[in-house]
């Protein structure tokens, strides 16, 4: 036993020697930007789409001569959709690789796990899709996290928007909420929808719940069928929403169905079928229908480069790439401190997901799009400006 222990501690020592390797190279002609995304694991599809968008933006900038002559050198790492890995990689990017800013991760949890690292190392981080209401750009004491930014609206804004859309555009008075009980995303949406809808004179006549991976919703739907209501609000993700919409339409429930950006996937159409997807509306960051020449050019270029239609994550990633480059340009020199100030002082940045100014709480003040589906295709889009 004694020898066991002696060995152990020599081992711990040897291990630290191995861990001590690694070096740094400096190149004056490039500016290093860390890309810390979920490229494998549970939410790899979000990470991959975001990185595709970012890379497209960087390629365009580098081809056009870079940022004031500086070429962007992206350093891409995969956090395996694991929060501890996200923390480790953010530390590596900031302390080993010497990046001036970090992009990502895509999901709120992993993004939150990198916030203390950014604050400690004084390197700005930006996420294009971390939409959680609490604990992102503002800490639990209400102070703004100085080095933390995001490029998307938060969940509560979507809930509020959809409630206003139901009240004003659909003239609904009574609503039913069918909520994914296993996700905090759905909980945030439902809460804000309910508050805004009742404050605007509406009434919530029924609240039902399901959990992710459920397949049969007939019990819930039969129950609400007997009630009188004008709209169904369905906060959740496309896997279940697709099935709920199909089963509801099969039961002749014809009321409009509202959702949020969790609906944004081709899988929704596969699951629900084209004939069920009528009178379905959801809020999103961006719509392919937008006739803005900037958006149409982005869609064309994206199709040429990757051979497929871009979705919201691609568009957000693209904007993120352009936005960080714009901030570095405005900062005048690639120093994290100046970039942070440039990010905070953004006025009227024009992107494919809408133009925005950075608010004092490091959330962008930007418009939201409500997309209407007819026979499974996006038929209408209404832009809602922030108040």
């Amino acid at each position, binding site marked *: *036993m*004694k*020898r*066991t*222990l*002696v*060995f*152990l*501690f*020599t*081992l*711990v*020592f040897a*291990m*630290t020697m*191995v*861990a*001590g390797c*690694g070096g740094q190279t400096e190149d004056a002609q490039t500016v290093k930007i860390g890309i810390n995304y979920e*490229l*494998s694991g*549970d939410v790899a599809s979000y990470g991959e789409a975001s990185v595709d968008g970012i890379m497209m933006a960087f390629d365009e900038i580098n081809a056009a001569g870079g940022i004031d002559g500086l070429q962007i050198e992206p350093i*891409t*790492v*995969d956090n*395996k959709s*694991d*929060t*501890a890995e996200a*923390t*480790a*990689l953010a*530390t*590596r990017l900031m*302390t*080993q690789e010497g990046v001036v800013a970090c992009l990502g991760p895509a999901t*709120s*949890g992993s993004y*939150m*796990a990198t*916030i*203390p690292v950014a604050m400690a190392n004084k390197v700005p981080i930006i996420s294009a899709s971390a939409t*959680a209401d*609490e*604990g992102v750009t503002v*800490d*639990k004491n209400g102070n703004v996290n100085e080095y933390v930014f995001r490029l998307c609206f938060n969940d509560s804004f979507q809930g509020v928007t959809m409630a206003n859309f139901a009240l004003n555009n659909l003239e609904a008075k009574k609503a039913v909420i069918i909520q994914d009980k*296993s*996700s*905090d995303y759905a*909980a945030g949406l439902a809460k804000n929808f309910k508050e805004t809808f009742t404050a605007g004179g509406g009434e919530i006549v029924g609240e039902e719940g399901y959990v992710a991976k459920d397949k049969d919703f007939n019990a819930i739907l039969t129950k609400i069928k007997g009630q009188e209501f004008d709209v169904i609000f369905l906060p959740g993700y496309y896997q279940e929403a697709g099935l709920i919409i199909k089963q509801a339409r099969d039961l002749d429930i014809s009321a409009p169905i509202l959702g949020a950006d969790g609906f944004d996937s081709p899988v929704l159409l596969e699951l629900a079928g084209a004939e069920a997807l009528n009178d379905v509306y959801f809020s999103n960051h961006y719509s392919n229908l937008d006739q803005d020449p900037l958006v149409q050019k982005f869609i064309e270029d994206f199709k040429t480069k990757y051979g497929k239609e871009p979705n919201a994550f691609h568009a957000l990633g693209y904007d993120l790439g352009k936005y960080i480059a714009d901030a570095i340009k405005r900062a005048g020199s690639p120093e994290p401190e100046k970039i942070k100030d440039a990010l905070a002082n953004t006025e009227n940045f024009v992107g494919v997901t809408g133009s925005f100014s950075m608010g004092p709480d490091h959330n962008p003040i930007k418009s939201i799009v409500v997309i209407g589906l007819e026979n499974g295709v996006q038929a209408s889009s209404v832009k809602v400006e922030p108040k």
Partner: protein
Amino acid sequence: MTSVLTKKNLLILGCILLTFVLVQVLMSVGFITSFHEITLATICINIILAVSLNLVTGFTGQFSLGHAGFMSIGAYVCALIVMRFDSVAGFLVGILAAALAATIVGILIGIPTLRLKGDYLAIATLGMAEIIRVVFLNLEITNGAAGLSGIPRYTNWFWMYLFVVLTIVLINNFIRSSHGRACISIREDEIAAESMGINTTKFKVMAFAIGSFFAGIAGALYASYFYFIKPNTFGFLKSIDILVIVVLGGMGSITGSIIAAVLLALVSTFLQSFTAVRMIFYALVLVIIMIFRPQGLLGTKEITDLFKFRRKNERIE
């Protein structure tokens, strides 16, 4: 009873202190950067987890797939306490409470499930870990699926090293005590052990409780090092990760668990630069080791046994 202060014990103590001081010095001169420190933290936490699971699975022979469940109890208890009492004292109270909470749950779960054997026990412990995860997913105080963020960081090299040393020494001594030998006899042949008058249920629950205790500590260190925890961090795959370390190092070998924990963390860190192929290589390393060393790197031996063996041979010659 001989004195604790034998020459050997003093030598060990010296080695422990020397390693600690060396790493501390390397840190302060910047040779070990904050990124290396994260690898070091992963290694330390995995050592505690693997050694404690080895006590249950390797030495007592009870196949458990629920270790991440106990880790999550420790992580949540410590996080909730340290977020309210933001000080080193709060952190230490948090660790203690974490370990005790994990132990209590370990005993409560252990008493009914440890009557099962083999596959059935594995499924039961897996189920229990899932229940723990779903409870955290639905509680108000744990902030549901969103998890707890902004946990203050108190875990540093000193505390990690202290708890690693404590875990290894305590579990090592336990295994060499009469209780430990009782546990090993259960692994070797439960019926024979019972017929020799060993209360098998008692010793199984005891090993399970000690394993949970240290898993709770590991969880607490994890929570206070990585700032953020959510229920899904401690899912089924985390239990498997820990089990992989134990099996890879050799079931029934403490040094094996330690070597495997270090090795896997280094492989994983080294492969970080090869984003696309890292998981393939990681899995390949596991497959190759299992093909050539199906009993694990060290089997049931300790690395020191190998030295002993050689010396004996030399003596014979």
